[in-house]
C-alpha cells in the first residue's frame, strides 16, 4: 500500500513537472520578441506569403489559446505542424527517435563502463587520484562541439565515443566520491583488513549500499547526454532529434523546437522517476 501511494505520488509529481515545462516553454516561446518573425520575410519572393502566414498565426496564437492547443494536441499525439517543412511535427520526430535512442543507449553504456572502471581503480588505490582526475578534468574543459570537431579532424572516434567520454568524465567524479565514502565504512575497512576479496565485497556490500545513488546518477547521466546530443549529432551528421532541433532553431521552426524540448523534458522526468529522489545524486 505504501509502495503504491509513493508510486502514485511520484507519478503525480512527474505529470506536474511535464505540465509546468509545457506551460513554461510555451510562455517562453510566445513571449519571445522574435516569435512572429521569419527569415523568409527578407526574401522578396516569399515576403508577402510569409507575412500573411504570420498575421494568421498572430491572430490565433494568444497565450491561453496556444496553451490549450498544445495540451489538446499532445493528448491526441499531435505536436502541431512544422513551419519550415509544412508537415506534422510527429512525422519529423518519429523516424529520428530510434536513431537518437540508439545513440544515447550506446553512449550511456560505454560512458558508464568507462566511469565505473576508472572510479573503481581510483577509489581503491590511495595515490592514483590525480592520474584519473586529470584526464576527467581535461575532458570536462573541452566544449562538446570542439571535442566532436577534433575527433572528425583526427579521423578517429565517432558520436558514441564523444558522448561516452563526456558522460564518463562527469560521472567519474561523482562515482569516485560515492565509492570512496563507501569504502571508508568501518565494516568494509574491517572486511578488507581481514583479507576478504574486493570483488566479493563490491558485489555483496558496496553495490547494494550505493544502488539508490547510482540510480539517481543514471538520471543525471541522461541529462548530460541530452545536453551533448545537439553538437554531436550536428557535427557528425547523425539524423537524430538533436540535429532536428538545431535545424529548427536555425530556421526559427518553433513548433518543432517546442516539441523536441518537451520530449526531452519527458525523458528526463521519466528517468528521474525511475531513478528515485531528484536530489539523491547531490548527496554524493
Amino acid at each position, binding site marked *: 500500500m505504501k509502495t503504491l501511494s509513493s508510486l502514485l505520488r511520484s507519478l503525480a*509529481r512527474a505529470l*506536474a*513537472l511535464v505540465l*509546468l*515545462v509545457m506551460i*513554461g*516553454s510555451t510562455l*517562453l*516561446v510566445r513571449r*519571445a*520578441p*522574435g*516569435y512572429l*518573425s521569419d*527569415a523568409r*520575410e*527578407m526574401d522578396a519572393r516569399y515576403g508577402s506569403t510569409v507575412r500573411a502566414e504570420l498575421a494568421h498565426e498572430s491572430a490565433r496564437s494568444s497565450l491561453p489559446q496556444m496553451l490549450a492547443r498544445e495540451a489538446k494536441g499532445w493528448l491526441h499525439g499531435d505536436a502541431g505542424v512544422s513551419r519550415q517543412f509544412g508537415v506534422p511535427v510527429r512525422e519529423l520526430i518519429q523516424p529520428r527517435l530510434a536513431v537518437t535512442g540508439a545513440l544515447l543507449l550506446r553512449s550511456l553504456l560505454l560512458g558508464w563502463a568507462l566511469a565505473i572502471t576508472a572510479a573503481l581503480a581510483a577509489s581503491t588505490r590511495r595515490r592514483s587520484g590525480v592520474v584519473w582526475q586529470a584526464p576527467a*578534468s*581535461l575532458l*570536462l*574543459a*573541452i*566544449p*562538446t*562541439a*570542439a571535442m566532436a*570537431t*577534433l575527433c572528425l*579532424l583526427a579521423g578517429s572516434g565517432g558520436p558514441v565515443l564523444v558522448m561516452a567520454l563526456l558522460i564518463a568524465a562527469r560521472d567519474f567524479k561523482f562515482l569516485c566520491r560515492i565509492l570512496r565514502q563507501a569504502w571508508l565504512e568501518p565494516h568494509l575497512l574491517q572486511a578488507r583488513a581481514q583479507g576478504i576479496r574486493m570483488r566479493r565485497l563490491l558485489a555483496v556490500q558496496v553495490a547494494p549500499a550505493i544502488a539508490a545513488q547510482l540510480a539517481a546518477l543514471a538520471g543525471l547521466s541522461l*541529462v548530460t547526454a*541530452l*545536453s551533448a*546530443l*545537439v*553538437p554531436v549529432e*550536428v*557535427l557528425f551528421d547523425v539524423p537524430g532529434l538533436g540535429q532536428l*532541433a*538545431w535545424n*529548427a*532553431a*536555425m530556421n*526559427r521552426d*518553433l513548433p518543432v*523546437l*517546442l516539441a*523536441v*524540448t518537451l520530449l*526531452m*523534458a519527458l525523458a*528526463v*522526468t521519466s528517468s*528521474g522517476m525511475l531513478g528515485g529522489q*531528484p*536530489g539523491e545524486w*547531490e548527496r554524493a
Partner: protein
Amino acid sequence: MRIRLLPVWLLAALTLGALAMVARPGASYAYQDREHTLAGASLQHPAGTDELGRDRLVRVSAALLLSLAGALAASVLTTGAAASIGTLAAFAPRGVAWLTMLVCDAFLSLPWLFLLMMVRSALPLQASPAHSAAITFLVLAALGWPACARAVYRGGVGLKRAGWILQARASGLRGRQLIRQVVPNLVPLLLPQFLICVPAFVIAEANLGALGLGIGEPLPSWGGMLLELDNSALLFRTEWVYFPLALLILVLLLLEAIPVEA
C-alpha cells in the same frame, strides 16, 4: 603566494594580458587587414590573422574578456536569484516551498542547450551583436539558478532548524532582521555555487556559439572562433586556428581549479 590560489593569479595575469592586448593603440577586433588574410605569426600579428585578416590575438583577448565578464555577471545574477528564492522558500510555508522546488525541478528537467536554443532562435532577426551577447548571458543567468536555489534551500532549511535560529525566533526576531542574520551564514554555500556557474556559463556560450547560435559577428566569442575549426581548408594553412581552443581549455581548467571552499 599560496599554491592553492595559483589558478586565481594565473587567471588574473591572463585577464590583464588580454586587457593590455585589447587596449593597445591601434588594436581592433574588427579591423580587417586584407593584405594578410590567414597569415602566420609575425611581429604585426603575433598569433596570425583569420580569413578576413583580423588579428587573432586581439580577437582571442577580446573573447576572453567578453566571456569572463559575461559569465561573471551572469553568475552574480544567478547566484543572487538563487539566494533570494532558496532562502525565501526555506523560510516560507511548506506549500510555497514545495511549489518553488517543483518549479526548480521543472527547470532542471530541461537540458540547458535545448532551452538556450529555443530562446536564442526566438530572438528578433535584427538583434545587434552587443544585444545578442547580452541576451545570451542573460538567458544563461535566467536558466542557471534552479540547481543553486535547491542547494541554498537545503542549507536554509538546515539553518531554520538550527538552535540559534529557533532561539532568535522565539525571542521575537522577524522578517528582515532574521534574513540579515541568515544570509551571512549562507555565504559559504553561495561562493562554491558562484564558482561552479562561471565555467559552466563559459562552456555553454562556447557550445552555443559553435552551433551558430551564440554571439553575433563581428563581436569575438569563443564559440564563434571555434567555428573556424569546421573549415578543414583553414586547418591546413595555419595551425594558429587551434589557438583559441587551447586558450579556452586553459581558462576552463584554471576556473575549475579555483578552490571552492570559502
